[in-house]
């Protein structure tokens, strides 16, 4: 058995030349010794709205400490919506943490260990170095660190199976509980065993550098990591935009990544070049145009072939080429005018479109206990997908039985357009209208509601159903 192991190691060492160090036992042990002190188990409580009330869902995942200030990179789907976070370090010490910022589009989040606790207890930790995922090659040995099924400090290894895996599917986009993801980069595919709980943990090369964040397990040795090159600008943007809360003064602000959007959906040209009479590997098909959005405003139409953006070619022949082009559009300055060269029929045209801030389908969600309802902010993609005429109002996500909204026979998905004849523009303004009805102690509130093509008045009877006090508030 020992002979066999030696033989395998010798064979692999022989097949692999530098700069892809082989997974010799010494090297694996050395990498483990370097990385392990930077890997944490992440336990979270996530707030979800169910039956019109906030409730908690607990879970755990993994993370990697990326600097000496105690910041940890993990997945959005692990910590992105967490309202309570604890991390457990390699030395088994448990430390509270908080969310600094997140980005569902790349499924990444950054959390901050509580450095006061670290200092008081004199807890030691180290941070991992970020590597270069662009230089990964298929076949290269890699290792994963994390907490599969809650089993902390688990190390697994294998090799890179593919470096530009795409899950592009025009029929069905990827999402995390409805939050879009995976639009802006391809994935590292590897046969390193990954299980639930590994999410957010580092994928590491044999030089002990982080090359990816383990994110999806496909089972049967088909596992996927977000390339660290995708994560680097996201980390920078989150840290730059996050504002720390000051107990005495202002509330903090979560860090985020702002991107540009043109309001269309693209499709690879593959097998359509002849039909559109275009050279092979030229342009990308604009498959669908949002009814409300920059490209529609610019006079764009579905079936236009987009050739360049600000003079830069946008060539997508195969699905694997989609993410870089989306990323290029996303990194245009928000609110700027861009020149789009398109081919429409036999004509080549130049359109000028003004980019808008990329917004997701799901907007901010809040609970309104006195009405027994949780609502979401209207977003442009939601309005487009649900064929609404305007980006305004808030929509119902859940309701409590016996509370005013449910008693008024409203349904999840209904859009509240006005409160006592004042139009609702967004969530913040709605909150003001709601608070005023409570302050004025109104026992009847008239809502204008849209349900599909129906528009109707709904009357909330508030006072007589309001609970005396609500423990969840």
């Amino acid at each position, binding site marked *: 058995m020992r002979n066999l192991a030696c033989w395998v190691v010798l064979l692999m060492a022989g097949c692999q030349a530098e700069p892809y160090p082989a997974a010799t036992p010494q090297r694996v042990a050395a990498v483990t010794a370097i990385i392990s002190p930077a890997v944490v188990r992440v336990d979270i409580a996530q707030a979800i709205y169910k039956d019109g009330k906030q409730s908690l869902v607990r879970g755990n995942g993994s993370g990697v400490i990326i600097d000496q200030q105690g910041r940890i990179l993990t997945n959005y789907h692990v910590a992105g919506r967490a309202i309570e976070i604890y991390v457990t370090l390699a030395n088994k010490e448990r430390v509270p943490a908080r969310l600094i910022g997140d980005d569902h589009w790349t499924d990444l989040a950054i959390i901050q260990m509580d450095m006061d606790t670290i200092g008081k207890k004199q807890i030691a930790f180290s941070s991992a170095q970020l590597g270069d995922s662009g230089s990964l090659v298929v076949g290269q040995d890699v290792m994963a660190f994390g907490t599969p099924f809650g089993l902390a400090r688990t190390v697994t290894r294998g090799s890179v199976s593919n470096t530009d895996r795409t899950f592009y599917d025009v*029929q069905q986009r990827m999402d995390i509980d409805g939050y879009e993801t995976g639009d802006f980069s391809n994935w590292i595919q590897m046969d390193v065993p990954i299980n639930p709980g590994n999410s957010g943990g580092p994928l590491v090369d044999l030089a002990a550098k982080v090359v990816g964040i383990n994110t999806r397990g496909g089972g049967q040795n088909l596992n996927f990591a977000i390339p660290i090159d995708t994560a680097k600008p996201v980390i920078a943007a989150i840290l730059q935009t996050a504002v720390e809360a000051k107990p005495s003064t202002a509330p903090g602000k979560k860090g985020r990544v702002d991107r540009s959007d043109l309001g269309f959906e693209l499709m690879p040209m593959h*097998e359509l070049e002849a039909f559109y009479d275009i050279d092979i590997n030229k342009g990308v098909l604009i498959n669908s145009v949002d009814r409300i959005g920059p490209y529609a405003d610019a006079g764009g139409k579905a079936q236009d072939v987009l050739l360049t953006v600000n003079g830069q070619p946008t060539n997508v022949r195969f699905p694997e080429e989609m993410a870089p082009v989306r990323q290029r559009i996303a990194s245009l300055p928000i609110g700027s005018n861009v020149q789009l060269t398109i081919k429409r029929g036999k004509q080549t045209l130049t359109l000028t479109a003004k980019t808008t801030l990329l917004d997701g389908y799901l907007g901010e969600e809040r609970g309104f206990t006195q009405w027994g309802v949780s609502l979401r902010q209207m977003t442009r993609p939601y309005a487009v997908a649900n064929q609404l005429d305007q980006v305004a109002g808030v929509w119902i996500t859940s309701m409590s039985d016996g509370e005013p909204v449910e008693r008024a026979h409203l349904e999840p998905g209904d859009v509240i357009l006005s409160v006592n004849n004042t139009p609702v523009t967004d969530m913040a303004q709605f909150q003001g209208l709601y608070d005023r009805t409570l302050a004025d102690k109104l026992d009847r509130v008239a809502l204008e509601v849209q349900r599909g093509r129906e528009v109707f008045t709904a009357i909330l009877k508030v006072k007589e159903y309001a609970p005396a006090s609500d423990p969840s508030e």
Partner: protein
Amino acid sequence: MDGIGHFRRNGRINWRLPILITAILLALSSWPARADEAATVPDEAATVRRMYDLVKPSLVAVKYTWASELGSQELSAAGVIVSDDGLVAFPIGIVTPALVPDDQMQKFKIVVPSETADETEIDATFQGRDERTSLAFVRPDSPRKWKSIKFVDSSPRTGDPLYSVGMLPKGAGYKAIVTAAIMSTRLRGPVPQLLVAGQLAGVGAVVLDSQGRAIGLVHARSLGEAILDNPENPDDLPTLNNPPRMFIPTSEFLSSIENPPSPSNPIVIPWIGCELKGLEKEDAEYFGIENVPAVQVGDVVPDSPAAKAGLSKLDVITRVDGKQIERGDLPIELPEIVTRYMQRMSVGSKVTFSVIRNKGDVPKDVVLTLDTRPREPQEVRRFYARDLGFVAREVTFTDTYRRHITAKTTGVVVALLRPQAAAQAAHLGMLDLITQMNGKPVENLDEFKKDYLDFRKDRPNDPVVLEVIRLDGKEQTINIQPPQSDAQPG
């Protein structure tokens, strides 16, 4: 198929047992009367037998072949002869509108059961359907002299004895069956349903009062209920396993028997072109109209009768033609009650709504002129693109309305996809609105058909590129690769 043998073999149900139980129950219920033959109380068993004999000669089965593009299927329903020259009425569920276009219903037969011989099949012609009364009609090709049922508009009172005579499926020899019941209550709603204590003799059964007058009919609410012989589950005998307990009174369908549709004179359904919603109690209080059933106007279709009359969204309708709206059991039934009222009027006639917008408004009268309802999917022409495996039909109003696009949008709509064929493999979807084919706008079905056939003939190896608008309004380019020769459908 030998239905009776089948039931026994599978051991799932034994239809004879329920019949036996029914017979025993009937015998028991008549026992006291039998015991006292001299009494003035009419002989209950004799009454039941009289009802049976009265209705049985007028019960027939209606059979037809539903020939869709993907194959054909034989369906049958229980029918009642309603005129002496042989007009037969049957529940509309079996030709349920969205499912079956008229020209796909072929080879209609009227099946006349016989106790002593094989049943007789008579060639017949479909006359049309009347959605307002939920009845469809068929007529024998050669006139016949038949005993018909004369329906009488009479409202039974709670407690009145009722009888019903209906028909069992072919597997049970099309036997007529009779049941006795008691009138329980009348349910309010768009279609008033009368509830009985006891059971009724299946969908299509005639309901009689104690004088032997036909006062109602048992209706189907779905295709499943309407089918007499369920081809997918021949063991199914809903009449016996799950007997109905509700029927509709003659008043609800008499108009359609007196003035039935015919191929040259189909029923024309009027419409007003706006969404309606019933007001809840709290809403009515808010508008200061407590205890007044009212409906609120939602979306108003441009250029529709409602739009032309100046009706606008959030208007509240409190009266229709000067009369209070009939009460339903629930507010959600009110729009249907109003719609059903208007559907019984003719195109071109006027209806007056009394409308308020705010509490305390003096109702304003809005007069609408009813127009013809836009065509429904089953009323338009179709084309089967057999080689790529999809059916295209003409665009209807609903197709454009649900997508928030102008009703003038031209194209064709995918009505059917053959499983595993090229179109489905390319992710063409049901109800996709095809606006372009190979870069050319689709103007109408005829042009689409011609262009399609020409293209497939001239360039059989080139992909067919369709531009479609999905149900959610998204555009999509569909690239259908033609099947290789071995993969052509047979």
